[in-house]
């Protein structure tokens, strides 16, 4: 069964460092997403991406965040200068179509900022 894969599974970084989280969405999917879950809180939308551009982003997704699909298979989330409050589980997701809500999520990348 096709699945969304994410790397790394866990990354520990110092505050102020750049972090790149990588995702390989399901191959025939066209819509890509990043969500995050701070420990004990709800899963929150960060950004959606379609046709090589951001289609929507949340208030959380400020100038420190960027996404890219550099090679047609990987979908990356970059945090330019990490803050303590960026510590969370980051989930990549993809879907074949929009407006259904049926997303396929990866297992997540846990980011710990010290």
């Amino acid at each position, binding site marked *: 069964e096709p699945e969304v894969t994410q790397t790394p599974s866990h990354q520990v970084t110092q505050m102020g460092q750049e972090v790149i989280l990588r995702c390989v969405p399901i191959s025939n999917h066209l819509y890509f997403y990043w*969500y995050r879950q701070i420990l004990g809180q709800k899963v929150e*939308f960060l950004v959606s991406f379609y046709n090589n551009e951001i289609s929507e982003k949340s208030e959380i997704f400020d100038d420190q965040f960027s996404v890219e699909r550099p090679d047609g298979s990987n979908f990356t989330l970059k945090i330019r200068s990490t803050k303590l409050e960026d510590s969370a589980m980051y*989930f990549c997701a993809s879907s074949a179509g929009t*407006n259904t*809500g049926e997303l*396929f*999520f990866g297992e*997540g990348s846990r980011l710990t900022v010290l």
Partner: protein
Amino acid sequence: DQQVKQNSPSLSVQEGRISILNCDYTNSMFDYFLWYKKYPAEGPTFLISISSIKDKNEDGRFTVFLNKSAKHLSLHIVPSQPGDSAVYFCAALLTYNTDKLIFGTGTRLQVFP
């Protein structure tokens, strides 16, 4: 922003009995409601959804009920099995000009033998 609320953080049910998970929402414009299941160290997995024009959707042991007047939905699992033990997230979707899911805080279901 508390558009989707799950007021019960946990629920414990005996195997074979019915599990009922509840969710309330505030935005009457939501078009779809979904339930996702999440095991530890895994991402959320889509379970079942319902359109806002329906009041019930059933898929095997899982049934979702929508009460629009009360802005309330529930997920019924019957019979409950130990493998159903997980965190269940309610989510809602507006389809006009957006495709972001708005999640509740989750309910941890434990099914014991």
